[in-house]
Each structure stands twice: as structure tokens, then as C-alpha cells.
């Protein structure tokens, strides 16, 4: 039994190791950003998106089902060695949340906000902070694609003044705010901040309440160092970036009615050794204190059953063309060379 047709909501332990297909209609809405690039290529090649049901994702989903949403938000942290499937588990959970009708705030990679930024504008709202217009507007665009149906339903509770002539009144739909942020690139970072604040306030509300899922990939980037520099060549601390500042407020558990799911990522992280994968090492002291208390969810390498399942999936899709790879010995070689690491296995099979 390699495939199961059930959506994430109905999956349980008996489906461990099986693949389920993400319906194509969901694909572009739920995951405009956020999937690992190699996985996106695989989806394009196979013409379908199949995700393996694994233990960490199931654990997360069961926690989300049983959690009490009137209490302050619980934070879940996925951690594991490089290439063990943390981002994929996160995407699995995000898919579950969106099928359940939650509002999903998916930040594909927090590291993208702290490095390689070409334009850094001083913020209009707060003198000592810096804006990142391109990243913010990109994110707002993707946010709009993901949560179309919520944008008209949520109404703003506060009046926001952008410039002397621009302002958004109270009671306007959120969609208008987001559109404004996308079109007016200069103030997009502040729009992001406003959106996050509104959602935080309204998430646990009883009237028209929705559940909010904040999914952050590479959360350790929020507390490290940045590679950005001010005009006088002095380094920028993460707190001085508007986006990072607002996101940190979201991750704090002072609001209720949702969950925060985060992944650690060494791949994009700055100034972290490549062998580091534990939360303490990657988050640093400051990050660990902010994230504390959290529910750690370890993501391990493929078990025997999972490896078997992945191997059969590749065979089924005729991805393994080499005749030797279809034999038992070839399978043993694959096990040895990849040590059951999902990403290593994927790269290995790519040229077989």
C-alpha cells in the first residue's frame, strides 16, 4: 500500500510511510512559496505532488487537534539534522491547517529577510528601524494568494495612517490593506506589521473567530546576526529590521487562538557551523529564551519502512532508470551511500 487518498485530517498512524497526493487545486493556493526548491522541481517532473506521511508531521497534527485554543499559543519547534525532512513536515502541517480552514501565515525562510537585501530603507514609522520593501511586498503577494477567502471577512479594528494623504479607515476589509501594501512598495513593511497586529488581535475572538497558524521556516535566523550593513558599514542587528521585529512579536505567546510552528534550518543560517542542529546551538541564548517554552518535535532520518516506501515510490514513477538500482544489491548500495537521509537519497536518485 503505497498511496493513500486521505487528506491530512484523516490520516493516522496506520498510514505511516504512505504517500498522499496534494490536490493540484490546493497546490498553488496553499504553497505559492514555502516548498523546498528541489521538491518543487520533483513536483514539476512527476506532474503531481506526493508527500510521505511521517511521524513528526502526524505528531504535530495530533497536537493541533487536541490543543486548547483559549489558552496562550503553543509553540512547536521542528529540529533535526540537515536534510531530514523538517520543511516537508512543516508543509504537511500547513496543508492540514489550510484544509481545516485556518488562516495560515507561512514565512518560507526567515533567513531571506536577514541577508542579501539590496534595498534597505529607513523606516518611516520608527526612526531607528529599517525597511525591506521587496521582501515585504513579495510576502504580501503570496499571503494574498494563500488566504483569499479571509481577506474580505476580516475587518480592521484600527485606523492606519501611511502618509499625509494615505490612510486606511477602521472597518475596511483586510484585503484592501494587503492590496495597498502590494501596490505601495515603500510602506509594505509597515503594512506587514499592521497585518500581523490585526491578526494577532482577532485570532482568538469569539465572533467570526478563526484559528491562526504561524509557520516559520528557519526561525533561528530571527535571532542571529545579519549580513546587512548600514551606510556607515556598521552591521545591522535583527531587531532593527521592521519585518523581524514584527515577526518576533507574533512568535511571542501573548496571544491566543492559534499555533506557532517553526523549523530550525542550518542550511540558510549565517555564522552557524554545519554540524549544528540542536535548538540551543542554532537559536542561541536569546532565541532560546524567547522561544521557551516550546514543544520540541525531532525529525529523524528515514526508518526502514519509510526508506522502503520512498524507494518503491521512485520505482513506481520510473525515476530509477538504472537496471542495477532495481535489484536488492542496488538498494543496499543506496542505503549505504545515503544513510537513509531523505535529501541525500533524493539527490542520489536524481542521476540514476
Amino acid at each position: 500500500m503505497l498511496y493513500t487518498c486521505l487528506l491530512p485530517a484523516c490520516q493516522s498512524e496506520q498510514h505511516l510511510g504512505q504517500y498522499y497526493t496534494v490536490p493540484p487545486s490546493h497546490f498553488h493556493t496553499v504553497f505559492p512559496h514555502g516548498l523546498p526548491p528541489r521538491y518543487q522541481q520533483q513536483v514539476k517532473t512527476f506532474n503531481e505532488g506526493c508527500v510521505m506521511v511521517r511521524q513528526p508531521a502526524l505528531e504535530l497534527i495530533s497536537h493541533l487537534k487536541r490543543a486548547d485554543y483559549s489558552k496562550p499559543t503553543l509553540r512547536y519547534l521542528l529540529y533535526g539534522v540537515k536534510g531530514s525532512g523538517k520543511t516537508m513536515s512543516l508543509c504537511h502541517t500547513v496543508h492540514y491547517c489550510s484544509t481545516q480552514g485556518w488562516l495560515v501565515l507561512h514565512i518560507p525562510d526567515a533567513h531571506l529577510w536577514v541577508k542579501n537585501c539590496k534595498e534597505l530603507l529607513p523606516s518611516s514609522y520608527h526612526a531607528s528601524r529599517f525597511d525591506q520593501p521587496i521582501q515585504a511586498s513579495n510576502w504580501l503577494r503570496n499571503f494574498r494568494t494563500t488566504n483569499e477567502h479571509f481577506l474580505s471577512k476580516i475587518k480592521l479594528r484600527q485606523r492606519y495612517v501611511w502618509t499625509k494623504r494615505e490612510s486606511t479607515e477602521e472597518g475596511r476589509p483586510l484585503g484592501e490593506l494587503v492590496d495597498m501594501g502590494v501596490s505601495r512598495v515603500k510602506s509594505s513593511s509597515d503594512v506587514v506589521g499592521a497585518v500581523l497586529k490585526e491578526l494577532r488581535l482577532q485570532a482568538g475572538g469569539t465572533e467570526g473567530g478563526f484559528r491562526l497558524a504561524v509557520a516559520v521556516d528557519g526561525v533561528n535566523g530571527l535571532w542571529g546576526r545579519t549580513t546587512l550593513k548600514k551606510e556607515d558599514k556598521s552591521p545591522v542587528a535583527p531587531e532593527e529590521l521592521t519585518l523581524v521585529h514584527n515577526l518576533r512579536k507574533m512568535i511571542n505567546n501573548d496571544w491566543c487562538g492559534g499555533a506557532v510552528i517553526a523549523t530550525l534550518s542550518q542550511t540558510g543560517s549565517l555564522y552557524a557551523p554545519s554540524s549544528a542542529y540542536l535548538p540551543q546551538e542554532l537559536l542561541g541564548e536569546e532565541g532560546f529564551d524567547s522561544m521557551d517554552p516550546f514543544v520540541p518535535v525531532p525529525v529523524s532520518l528515514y526508518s526502514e519502512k519509510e526508506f522502503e516506501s520512498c524507494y518503491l515510490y521512485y520505482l513506481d514513477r520510473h525515476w530509477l532508470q538504472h537496471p542495477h538500482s532495481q535489484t536488492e544489491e542496488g538498494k543496499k548500495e543506496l542505503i549505504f551511500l545515503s544513510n537513509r537521509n531523505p535529501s541525500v537519497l533524493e539527490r542520489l536518485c536524481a542521476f540514476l
Partner: protein
Amino acid sequence: MAASGGRTVGSFLWKCGNCCFNFNTVSSNLTRQVLSRQLCVSAVLHRKNLAAAGPEKFSEEFIKKQVEEFNIGKRHLANMMGEDPETFTQGDINRSIAYLFPSGLFDKKAKPLMKHPDEVFPKQRAVQWGADGRPFHFLFYTGKQSYYSLMHVSTGSLVGSRWLLKEELEELLVETISEHDYARFIQLMERLLSLPYCSVEEDFVQRYRRQLEIQSSKQQVQPLQYDQHGVAYSTGDGRRKTATGTVLLRDSGSGSISINGTNYVHYFPVLQDREQLMFPLHFMGVLGRFDMQCSVSGGGHSSQAGALRLAISRAMLSFLSEGQVETMRQAGLLTPDPRIKERKKPGQEGARRKFTWKKR
């Protein structure tokens, strides 16, 4: 014969007359002997150099076919002449051909001839190498393989053995021997070997020689060690180009490998290095059987992988049988790689690279 011989001899003497005048002073008998010997020599000299003929022009099947045809033709000829095919000799053949095909030609080689193909076609060497280009004989690359193999055989008893030491000889004879006596003994044995027909007394000579251990083909296979749980383990170390590695191989494991404390997938991100580690295990078909704890230092990632590969092969020896050890040796898994970085020479930029040549 004498008359025709005289003509060639005369010309020969005239040729040799320039090189040595002593011939003229030699007595007539000796001259005749010398002349007759030189006749034989001249025939050999005039014959073509067989070895330099080049690759064979006639294939084996062709020669075989020719032999068959010759035998059939011989029987036909015998029938034609009315003689018994079984007792038809070469002399009979020659007479029959001379009778059937009378020729007025003077040159012997131009007259019709019927001889056994081995005498007609020049003796040539078969192809010395197989389909993969690897030569059959182990002395092929000396150039004169047959000669050297002949030399090798005749002195075979001396190669790979040494004379008895003085202490060993004393032990054998149960007597005390002085150094002078021992020297005389060795001298006598060498003189014996230098005489012709010494191979007759080979057994006698061998009694006083000891075989030398050929170091290269002997692998020290350490016995298996067992730890407190009864699990067999063995160690091995290897070196490659300033990288040294040691491996502790444990039996009944799951194929997990840790290098310097970290997982091998993280230590060797390059696929090639992991393939190097896999090679000895995969070759013997024991991929999932062993657990390994390795430590390695020095060199770069490739040389560390090579060092570990050698170490793994050496550690695996204690788990394998003799035949498997031999296959591993032939696969080159047990040979340490002798290549190191070549020295930089003065006047050159690197080991081989010269400085840029400027015309002016």
C-alpha cells in the same frame, strides 16, 4: 658440392681477407675446417631474422588448413605414382615432383616444390597478447621473453633462496665450524653450481639452501578479537598521502559508520568519498553487516577516504577466508597507494610546470 662450395668460399674468404690476415697463415686442414664452419655460419647469416618479421601474416587456421591439404596431396601423389601412401617419405615426394614437373630452371628455389607447410611458411610467433591487450608471458616487456624465461628456469633453484647461515650449518652437521671453514664451504657450493650438469645434483644442493620468504604476497591476517558481549571486532589502519586512518570493525551491526564522532554522511558530503568507503564492503557483499568507528586525520578529503578504505580492507581480512583475501588483493584493495606529492624543483614553478617562456 665442393666445386660449387669453392666459389662461395672464395668470395667469402675475399670478404674476410680484409678483416683478418691471420687466416692466410693457417694450415690447410684448419682452413678447410674453418671454411666449412663458416659455410654453416653463412647459411644462418643469410637467413632472415625471424624475430624481426613482425606480426604474424598467416593465421593458425590457415596453417592448419595448409597442413591438411599437404597430407591429402601427399596421398594423391602416392596414388598417382602407384606407391603406398602410408610409407611415402619426403624424399619420395621430391622425386615424384621432379618426375611429374620437369623444370629447366637453374635456381633451386624457382623449381616446383612440395614440402610440409612448417618448412615452407616461416616460423613466426603467435600473437603475444590477449583481447584486452594484456600480454600472456610475464617477461613480455623485456623484449626477449623466451631468452629470459630460459635463463630464469636454469637459475630457478638459486632465485628465492639463500645459502645456509654458519649457525644453521653447525646445527645441521652437529659440529663447530670456523668462519674460514664456512667460507670454503660456500666457495665449494658455488663452484659446484658453476659446473655443467649441476642440475643433476640439485637435490643435494637444495639441502643446503633455505627459501626466502617472499614478503609481498604474505598478508598478516590478525585473528578476530571478541569483546565482552561476544561480538567479534577487528581493527585496521591505513595511510594515503599524509592522511592516516584507523577503523574498528564490529560484526553483527547495522551498517552505521561514525567518523571522528560524526556521521559519515556529514563528514564526507562528496559522493565519491562515500563510494570509496563502500567499495571494500560492496566488493565482498557484506554491506549491512558491520558497524564501524573510524578516526582519521591529516590530508584532504580524498586522501582521508582512501586511507579509510585501506584501513577497512585490512580490518576485514580477519573476517574473510583465504580465497576472499586473494581476490581482495587482486582487486587492489590491500595495496597502499604509493603516490605522494612530487617535489618542486628549482628553476621551475612547480614539479613539472616551467616558468613562462619569454621570447625576449
